[in-house]
């Protein structure tokens, strides 16, 4: 942009202060003009003339600076004259003056201790309300399921199969790889400790029990919460944003039956299968590591495996799978249906769904541990 940056000169002329504006008085020059204009005083003079005839470019920001100065000087008791404005600039100045209403830029927020108390309280109430809503949502799923059992054609077989493929089959590589690697890590870490006691062979017990009872299912559940729970929220949330869910309701279709139930059933089917696959891959990883690093041959490994584990070792892991699946699918669908309006809320609730489902999975896993310890398996 051509021209010189805005500035002004001040001179006295027959008892009158003359402020002569020069150069560009526009948004780009406003930074330079702002402070000097605020500091400008009439200096006891009764009349101030603002000579605006030399301005090269004049826009809303410049007009505001002129108007603000005019207003302040007048309030301080001076008589202010404006000269040198052509009609177009005069009109702009008048429009700016007409729209001079101060505004608040941000809503007021409480500060300090009050804010902490407010947030804690809000958080607590929201958590309780959410707990109640989860229970209600679980009830709704069960009612929908009961209705579908009574009228089996309400089961959407195609949709269930599609989701089993999405959440189960397509997750095999990642679940398998992670479980395999965890088996390796366990074997290696366990071996270096057990070697000190000459008890390398017990590494099999370590791997078998930790993988089968806890790690395989827990890791699978966490991966699936991140992979499929989030996908449920995002899919259903996007449909909410485009009013597809409302359209379903308006067409007399039940979103619980069409969207939620197939996803829940698919995950309840897929997760135990994935967990079993993770069991195998974890043992494979641990077994290979035991063989290469500790010279525990496959034959010895299998023999120790038989001795160390029984039906219940595997069952304890797999029993948890459908429960975790239900939790993950429920949270994913619930948060998806809570999406309102904007795409931004899809992102926010997707994150929340993942965090909540992982949290719930670990809490329930702890409860299972206590339960199994109490009944002694």
């Amino acid at each position: 942009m051509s021209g010189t940056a805005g500035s002004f000169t001040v001179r006295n002329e027959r008892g009158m202060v003359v402020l002569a504006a020069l150069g560009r008085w526009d948004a780009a020059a406003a930074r330079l003009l702002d402070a000097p204009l605020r500091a400008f005083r009439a200096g006891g003079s009764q009349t101030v003339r603002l000579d605006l005839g030399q301005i090269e470019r004049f826009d809303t920001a410049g007009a505001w600076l002129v108007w603000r100065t005019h207003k302040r000087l007048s309030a301080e008791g001076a008589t202010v004259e404006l000269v040198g404005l052509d009609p177009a600039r005069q009109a702009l100045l008048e429009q700016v003056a007409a729209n001079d209403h101060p505004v608040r830029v941000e809503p007021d927020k409480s500060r300090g201790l009050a804010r902490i108390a407010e947030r804690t309280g809000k958080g607590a109430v929201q958590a309780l309300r959410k707990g109640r809503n989860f229970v209600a949502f679980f009830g709704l799923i069960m009612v929908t399921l009961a209705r579908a059992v009574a009228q089996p054609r309400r089961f959407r077989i195609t949709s269930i199969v599609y989701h089993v493929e999405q959440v189960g089959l397509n997750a095999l590589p990642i679940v398998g790889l992670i479980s395999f690697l965890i088996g390796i890590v366990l074997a290696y870490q366990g071996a270096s400790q057990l070697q000190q006691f000459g008890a390398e062979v017990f590494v099999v017990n370590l791997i078998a029990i930790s993988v089968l009872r806890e790690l395989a299912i827990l890791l699978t559940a966490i991966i699936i919460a991140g992979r499929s729970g989030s996908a449920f929220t995002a899919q259903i949330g996007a449909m909410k944003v485009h009013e597809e869910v409302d359209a379903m309701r308006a067409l007399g279709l039940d979103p619980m039956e069409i969207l939620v139930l197939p996803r829940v059933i698919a995950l309840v089917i897929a997760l135990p299968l994935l967990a079993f696959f993770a069991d195998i891959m974890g043992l494979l990883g641990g077994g290979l590591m035991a063989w290469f690093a500790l010279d525990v041959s496959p034959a010895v490994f299998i023999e120790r495996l038989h001795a160390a584990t029984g039906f219940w070792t595997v069952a304890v892991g797999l029993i948890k799978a459908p429960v975790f699946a239900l939790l993950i699918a429920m949270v994913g669908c619930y948060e998806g249906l809570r999406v309102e309006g904007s795409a931004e809320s899809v992102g926010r609730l997707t994150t929340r769904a993942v965090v909540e489902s992982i949290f719930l999975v670990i809490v329930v896993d702890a409860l299972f541990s206590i339960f199994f310890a109490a009944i002694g398996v």
Partner: protein
Amino acid sequence: MSGDPIIRIRGLRTQFGRQVVHDGLDLDVERGEVIGIVGGSGTGKSVLLRTIVGLNRPAAGSIEVFGAELAKLPAGERRRQEQRWGVLFQDGALFSSLTVAQNIQVPLREHLHLPQALMDEIAAIKIGMVGLAPEAADKYPSELSGGMRKRAGLARALAMDPEVVFLDEPTAGLDPIGAAAFDQLIRSLQRSLGLTVFMVTHDLDSLHAICDRIAVLADKRVLVVGDMATMLRHDHPWIREYFHGPRARAANLDTAA
């Protein structure tokens, strides 16, 4: 600078994959005019707007704005050019994590580094100028109606006092009273700020009320440019259908000619 067109497009070709949207498109926009771009759905009106402001890269041809070709400018020059225009997207495209006033302050803060007090004052003026109530300033976009979001989007587009504003369907989705008020707003701002307005629209009332010239996009190029009388005289079937159809009669265009 007067006399030269402010936007000059020659031989523009845009395509997505193998789908050609524009081919050999020429258009001049004069300084200080309001030009309306019309055309059937899918003729690339919004694409043209986005291409001019550099959001799409043309496959061939040249687009000069303020006498310089944006694509060939170094990054710093290009940023200075971009500060000389404002864009109003269809739904306002306000930043959802910021209030209306903060949205208006974004370009002021990022480009001009103005002191906060001055930015607050300028934001207040812009909010008034686009006809929003002062109470709207500290609201978030999700708390506003569609019409208010458009006004807030316009205020942000005007924050830097640009020379050209690009409006993408400014009146779509507004009720007729709101749309008429928005037309008047654009017209009065255009007069008082000396703006050049490039407007993509479907709204015959807008075209009639505020556009100095109309450009019709069809067959991948600008078919004809001219005022409303030229449009009404033209005998291309689509233009006849558009300007003499039942909706056009409802907008009293026939009697205006």
